[in-house]
């Protein structure tokens, strides 16, 4: 196991390096001149030159790259160009909000999609299966935007069941008051594709020989579905959840924008609009690291789920 972990951590280094290089060169060669952006519209050439010198932009490329790498390793991500807030502080304050919204969404998505998918897969080809498939296709074709716009208007504005927007400092208030509407909308939209995906997993499992063996042993259909098939289908399902996990850290920026939730996604969007490069660069690199670490943890945990997995 130790050898496996070391090997994986070792393999992460080139990928991380690649991400850093990608971000660095992307912004360097395609982005605008940071000095001009920071200087603003009315800066004089001298001011811009001065800014350039402070930022170290007059140095050769590899020196700049070195400075950038150093800042990443020492966790010094600089300050936002727009608000002058330290980027590290930005993470600390915004991340909890994102997680408070995204975690319930992920949990509910999985918990709801599972039974529906199982039921639909078992009755493959029946009228209910096909109806659900068509309905979910239609539901999927409407952009998430529309759901939020209409949902917010209907449930928040017209019916007044939930607040239209808002956030508070207490986690509990958030969970009870401000989170339900966005979670409801997101789960509604996410349920269709998740169910379709899980249905495929269940159908695949139902096609395997061990299902026939289980039936041949005289087990009831319920036992076959809930013990044998479900247990095997958990493997691709958990893989899928594992893949979705890194996504909850970015959050759904749309939800955060619409509902004025001060989360990381919204922060990034603001940064993009304001050409706030340090924030975007830092978030990208930071999230890449989180993604890789989560992947590693999921892979290690996989052995618990699938006994055939050999970690080498």
């Amino acid at each position, binding site marked *: 196991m130790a*050898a496996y972990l*070391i*090997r994986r951590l070792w393999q992460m280094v080139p990928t991380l390096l690649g991400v850093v290089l990608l971000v660095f060169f992307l912004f360097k060669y395609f982005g605008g001149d940071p000095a001009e952006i920071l200087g603003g519209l009315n800066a004089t050439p001298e001011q811009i030159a001065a800014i350039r010198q402070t930022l170290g932009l007059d140095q050769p490329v590899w020196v700049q790259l070195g400075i950038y790498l150093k800042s990443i390793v020492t966790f010094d991500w600089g300050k936002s160009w727009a608000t002058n807030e330290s980027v590290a502080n930005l993470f600390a304050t915004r991340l909890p909000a994102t997680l408070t919204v995204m975690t319930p969404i992920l949990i509910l998505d999985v918990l709801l999609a599972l039974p529906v998918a199982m039921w639909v897969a078992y009755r493959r080809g029946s009228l209910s299966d096909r109806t659900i498939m068509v309905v979910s296709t239609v539901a999927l074709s409407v952009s998430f935007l529309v759901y939020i716009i209409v949902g917010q208007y209907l449930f928040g504005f017209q019916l007044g069941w939930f607040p239209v927007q808002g956030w508070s400092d207490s986690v509990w208030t958030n969970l009870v008051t401000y989170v339900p509407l966005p979670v409801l909308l997101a789960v509604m939209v996410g349920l269709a594709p998740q169910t379709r995906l899980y249905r495929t997993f269940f159908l695949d499992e139902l096609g*395997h*020989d*061990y299902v*026939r*063996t*289980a*039936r*041949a*042993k*005289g*087990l*009831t*259909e319920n036992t076959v579905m809930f013990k*044998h098939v479900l*247990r*095997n289908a958990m*493997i691709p399902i958990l893989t899928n959840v594992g893949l979705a996990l890194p996504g909850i850290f970015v959050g759904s920026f749309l939800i955060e924008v619409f509902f004025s939730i001060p989360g990381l996604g919204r922060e990034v969007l603001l940064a993009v609009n304001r050409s706030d490069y340090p924030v975007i660069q830092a978030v990208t690199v930071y999230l890449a690291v989180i993604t890789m670490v989560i992947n590693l943890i999921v892979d290690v945990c996989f052995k618990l*789920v*699938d*006994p*055939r997995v050999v970690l*080498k």
Partner: protein
Amino acid sequence: MTLLSIQDLRVAFRMGKVNGVAQRAEAVKGVTFDIAQNTTVALVGESGSGKSVTAMSVLNLLPDNAERSGKILWQGKDLLRTPLHELQHLRGKEIACVFQDPMQSLNPVFTVGDQLCEPLVKHMKMGQRAALERAEQCLVEVGMPEPKRRLAAYPHELSGGQQQRVMIAMALACEPKLLIADEPTTALDVTIQRQILELIAEIQRKHRMSVLFISHDLGVVGEIADEVLVMRNGILREQGPVAAIFASPKDAYTQALLACRPSLERNPARLMVIDDHIAGRAAQQEPKPKDPSAPVVLEVRGLSKSFWIKQGLFGRREFKAVQNVNFQLRKGHTLGVVGESGSGKTTMGLSLLRLHEANTGPMSGEAIFGGKNLLTLTDRERQPMRRRIQVVFQNPYASLNPRFTIGQTLVEPMAIHGIGADTNERENRARTLLEKVDLDGTAFGKYPHEFSGGQRQRIAIARALTLNPEVLVLDEAVSALDVSVQAQVLNLLKDLQDELGLAYIFISHDLAVVRFISDEVLVMKDGVVVEQASAARILAAPREEYTRRLLAAVPRGYRPARAVA
């Protein structure tokens, strides 16, 4: 006493609708037979005969689109009309099943012990601990080494033979009256197959159980069955006691099936094929002896091939797949290479053709062909050499590109090597070759999926012949074919060898087939040549222990001496 009585069973599959008309494929067209107590009944047939469908109908283990009609009486009760929950009481308790591919049939995420206990808990109402004890007993009975440890093992940690033993243990757990075994040994190596067959026979004797044994291999069936039923295309062609079927079969198809098996006893020049037999053609003649002083076309010395396997953090170790193979292949002769899986026989063949990438591992030795060493040819030299040594692979369903027409498949090699002046000439050559392999010229514009396995294999042979090779490597080329089709292809190969003076390297796991077609035989095990001699000598006087074991494991069919034992 009759345990199971099948009366006029018909099974059809719904295949969807074409132009609003529901399509059905009939798999079983009216089958009637009985299974008595304490008997082994064998259901024999080639693929598509409906034998598996018949067996699976008993417990209704067919797919949802199957429609059954007729009667299946189990101790008086009609199983076709029994509701599901009653059927579930029978399954696993009175009637149990063993399937063909144990790796797929066992649930990969549960331990062996878990799966063994399931029928015990459900049918015998045992507690968990009692069930585990009984499970261990079952494993002991099926001859599983270290049964206690195996209870906690997962299926993928066991070998194929051990997995099949687990399946059998699971079937026996509740002491059923009838065991339905659907090709239980087909997916296993010959020596393991022998062990499992003996196990099933022993269990049948001990528990006085009835067995419905499905197989395509008459040799296997002859050894263990009391009664034999022969099916073809969904119809029962013949049924009777095993001695009668083997000694004096009445139906033409049964006669043909018995005759077209290559066997270790006889040595015909040609194998009888079904149509020959049905048409009543005469039997075989003795084979023409081969010229022992024919020129040597390929000489192999010290051929070795290893693969790199990743190990530890950064290292790798060498896995020796083939070690020190030597032989001489003469023009017009056939070298048979025999071994079980993992013996390295396929690796050896592919290495000669330089089809193993260089970066997979080191290769050493010499293979002198046309004055050059095949193993050290540069890329440029390899291309012209490809014309002279060709290959036919095992799987007829995978060796032809599904998106190419037959014509494209045949013309391509000629176009690459510049044979024939223009496309017309190449197409003509292709058509001639198709006729040479007994296929219609109209095959030219068709796609592979329109042909059967045997036909595709013949197309593959035609493709190999487009380049006028001198040596043909046949890598398990007939192993995936039905017995009767296999006979056709083997006869074709012999004819082509006589006509074109080809030299064959015939790789197979089936000793009987190798015996039929080879002049010299190489027996391989774990990458090493265990014994090497002429085909006749290997059969008559094998020197090595492994060779003897291999010979003994081959199913011989029914022999009257058995009745005495």
